[in-house]
């Protein structure tokens, strides 16, 4: 039992393999995918000496447990959670040595939604179009983890870890998303745009890797009818017929037919990925 792989002991609610995604294929209908909190995935990679684009595990709400078949350095970051090796507490947000055959567990997130597990050498699942990311919209990449599954690890990196502990911004009590209006804000009434910029929304429990759904006042359209399909970007705030804004996250469709009232700055999307259902949301248009 010394091969470079790990077995899944507890898959958790939804644990996927993620790297920095597969951009460059949107014109074929392929979402970019990748870690929803790329800052967290980079940090845990750096803690174990991996390059930033090594594949990690992204958990959802209740963590996961794995049993490496070889001794391996790991780091757990992103949403804070209890971390144990064979039931004993170890450090969160730092490199930890896990012996071969021991069980590494990332527990339920204490705050935030998504924890990240990096293994020295990275998760070596088969890449698809240059990325190992699981894409839940179109089903590309490795399947979400299942109990008993075995995933390979890459060769350990020769580089030393670049630092010892990770700084991490806690998920905010209120999510403030800075946006630039457009391209289709003129499809909404002036009153709707005021509502969008001033009223409070809440993160809906129906949110997922495709989009952060919100609950709150509906945005009323000034232009009826359908918008011919057009290309969609990460962070696009699309408004479906029910009027509640949806912020597109990594697994978003590449084209869509509902008007985009605004686009969230990339820098704010990691916080969106860590916002639990019920978190207040404000959209802050920049000049």
């Amino acid at each position, binding site marked *: 039992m010394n091969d470079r792989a790990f077995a899944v002991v507890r898959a958790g609610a939804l644990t996927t393999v993620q790297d920095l995604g597969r*951009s*460059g*294929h*949107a*014109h*074929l*209908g*392929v979402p970019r995918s990748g870690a929803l909190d790329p800052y967290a995935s980079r940090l845990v990679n750096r803690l174990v000496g991996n390059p930033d684009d090594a594949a990690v595990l992204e958990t959802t709400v209740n963590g996961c447990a794995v049993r490496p078949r070889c001794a391996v350095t790991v780091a757990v970051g992103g949403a804070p959670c209890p971390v144990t090796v064979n039931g004993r507490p170890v450090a969160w947000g730092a490199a930890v040595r896990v012996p071969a055959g021991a069980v590494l567990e990332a527990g339920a997130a204490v705050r935030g939604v998504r924890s990240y597990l990096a293994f020295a050498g990275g998760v070596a699942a088969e890449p*698809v*179009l240059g990325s190992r990311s699981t894409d839940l919209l*179109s*089903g*590309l990449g490795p399947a979400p983890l299942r109990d008993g599954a075995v995933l390979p690890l890459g060769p350990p990196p020769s580089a030393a870890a670049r630092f010892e502990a990770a700084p991490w911004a806690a998920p905010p009590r209120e999510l403030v998303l800075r946006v*630039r209006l*457009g*391209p289709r804000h003129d499809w909404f009434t002036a009153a709707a745009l005021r509502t969008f910029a001033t009223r409070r929304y809440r993160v809906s429990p129906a949110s997922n890797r495709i989009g952060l759904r919100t609950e709150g006042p509906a945005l009323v359209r000034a232009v009826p009818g359908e918008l*011919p*399909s*057009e*290309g*969609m*970007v990460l*962070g*696009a705030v699309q408004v479906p017929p029910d009027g509640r804004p949806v912020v597109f996250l990594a697994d978003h*469709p*590449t*084209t*869509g037919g509902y008007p*985009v009232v605004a*686009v*969230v*700055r*990339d820098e704010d999307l990691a916080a969106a990925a860590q916002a639990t259902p019920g978190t207040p949301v404000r959209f802050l248009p920049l000049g």
Partner: protein
Amino acid sequence: MRTLPVGERALLVELGNGEEAQAFHAELLRRRASGALPPVREIVPAARTVLLDGVEDPGRLAALVSGWQVEPQHARAEPVVDIPVRYDGPDLAVVAALWGVEPDDVARIHAGVEFRVAFCGFAPGFGYLTGLPARYEVPRRSTPRTAVPAGSVAVAGTYTGVYPRSSPGGWQLIGNTDVVLWDPAREPAALLSPGTRVRFVPEGPAARSVGRR
């Protein structure tokens, strides 16, 4: 042509209609191939727009493209992708009634058109094919199917598409093909990409009555 900023790093170019959008997309690809386009991560054509995403300076790019003379799209000598089809889909009779023809005529009409992939979306490898005249426009089904089989050849609006894999879908199904539209292990993974010319070739029982060209 109208350019609309999309966030901090993207630009949406809106054209007058679908043909202009396809011509502008072809122009972008030509200029990129010759090194005359600033770096762009994604070029995503759609119904009457082209999205340029991952751009350093969208304002400068907007000024640049606004000055372009775009050649109208002309038939090029590139090969056509032939897709053999059995015209026996479950909505064939519905589509025939909407078109005001007999079910057998649907294959003749559909296979007589040269299509072009206007854009992709919905699923990897799913192309929105244009070419069907406006008089053959059909609505989507009022209730989408929960599972449309892979290889289904379908129409909606004046678009034609082929489902790359089994998925929910609301288009009217007129036929079936064994051709693999999407295979990530293949290079290229997508059989159809924006700009590809496509012809449907009847096979099976329908082929005899329709005949091959």
